[in-house]
Every structure is written in C-alpha cells, then in structure tokens.
C-alpha cells in the first residue's frame, strides 16, 4: 500500500482521460453521491488485498483472474461491462474469479436518487455483477459459492 497519494502524468493517455472524467462527473462527489460510488469498487480485487473481506479462511478464497482494467492507473482484476452497443464478440472476461465455471452477470446503471440530507436529486451510477458456480480455491479444492461485484 502506498504511504502517499499516487501520481499520474498529465501527458499520459490515461491521465487525460481521467482528468476529463473527473471534471465531468466526479468534481464534487459528496454532492452527487456519498455512498454509492464508494461502495462500488469495494469488491475490486487489488493485488495486495485479494483476501480482504472475504469472510472465510484464505484457503477457501477464490483466485483472481490474471487480467483486468486500470482505473486511475491502478490495476484491478475486473473488466467493466460492455456498453450496450458493443457486440459480444468484443467481450472481456466478465468473471473476477479464475478456475471458475458457472454463471456471471455484469451491468452498469446511471440515474438519480434522493437523500434526506440533500434537497436536490443526486446523480447515481453503479456497476454491479455476480459470479455463481464452482471454483478451485487457493487451497486447491473445489468449492461452490456466490460472489457479488458491488
């Protein structure tokens, strides 16, 4: 875990895209959503935190897929859902778990919501998903389970 904030180059492609994204959507995040986006990403699989919050012994924990995306330049074992207009032939691995066979689901919703603490409608976006099936855990044994991407 870094002991100071991460830094990105302004000239990098990722830096430009992130900058634009934050200007347009996350500029004052407390005002549009305090909780939803914070919970989103909670289930991201970070290399140094893969077993955090699994609630079971490490032995039964599933193993993350090798690939993934890099939001804010930070690698996670997760690919975001395909936009509706993109054909399934372009699909990236929807599961976050490897050595897995079962059902998966991913989606992205953007809308609005309300809070007693705010007079105005708040913007809302959530990426959600699930994996339900069998997997070979870190202990090498076959397990059955349901996992949520929240």
């Amino acid at each position, binding site marked *: 875990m870094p002991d100071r904030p991460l830094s990105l180059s302004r000239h990098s492609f990722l830096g430009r895209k992130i900058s634009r994204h934050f200007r347009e959507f996350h500029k004052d995040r407390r005002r549009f959503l305090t*909780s939803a986006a914070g919970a989103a990403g909670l289930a991201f699989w970070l290399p140094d935190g893969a077993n955090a919050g699994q609630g079971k012994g490490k032995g039964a924990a599933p193993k993350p897929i090798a690939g993934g995306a890099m939001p804010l330049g930070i690698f996670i074992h997760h690919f975001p859902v395909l936009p509706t207009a993109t054909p399934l032939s372009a699909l990236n691995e929807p*599961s976050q778990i490897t050595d897995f066979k079962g059902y998966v689901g991913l989606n992205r919703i953007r809308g609005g919501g309300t809070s007693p603490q705010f007079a105005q409608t708040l913007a809302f976006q959530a990426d959600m998903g699930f994996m339900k099936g069998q997997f070979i855990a870190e202990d090498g044994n076959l397990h059955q389970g349901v996992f949520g991407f929240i």
Partner: protein
Amino acid sequence: MPLHPDSVRVEFNSARAFMHAESLSVPDAHDLANSLTHGQGIVTPTFTIPPIAPVPAAVSFDVEWSGGISRETVVNEAQNFRGEFIKTGSTMKWSSIQDGFSFESEDPDPARNLGATIGRERNGVFFDDPNDA
C-alpha cells in the same frame, strides 16, 4: 465479496437473472480513488482526490437482468475463458445508509441501463472442461 447462496437467481434460457441483498455491510470508501488506494487518495497534475478513510455502511439492492438483445458463444483464448453470453437490459434499485447519510435510488428504469451481460462460462483450468457447473 461473498453473498448468500440465495442472493442470485439465474434463468439463463429466459435471459433473466436477479441479484438481491438487504442491509449488506460494506465500507463506504467515499470515492473510487480512495477505494482503489485504500484511503490514500490520488494526485495528478490536473486533479487531486484527498485521502479519506472508509466508513461503515449498509447497502440494499435489487438488480435484474432481462430482455435478451443478442446471444453469442464466445471463446477467448487470450483471456482463457469461454461460454455462452447474452446481452440484456437491466434495472436496479439501490439504497445505502451510514452515520449521517442515506441514499435511495430512483425506481428501476430500463432506460437507465448502459450495459448488461449475463453468461454461463468456464475459465482457467475449466477452459476445456466439457461439463457445465
């Protein structure tokens, strides 16, 4: 994160799936940057997200995938997965509560969907397994 076995129901042949949770304990990391950096924040030349420690929260949600748009068998050897996948519509009802703040999303609206897919897949050591789960 692990969910209760009954929290997800899949009716694959009908292109439908459901995910439900009630009062699920989660940390609210405040924003994506602090979620990814474990509360360390992030600094770039053009924006700064200050470090913010997570706080306990509880969330409830009902997510539904339905309305098959397209269906395709995908074999992706580079990413080592294969399966049958269905692009669908989706809706969501979402709420959260924590000390000093609560939020409830608008009623489920199919027009709010930006992308949704369900699938029956095999990956890793099961890539060549002829038996489904």
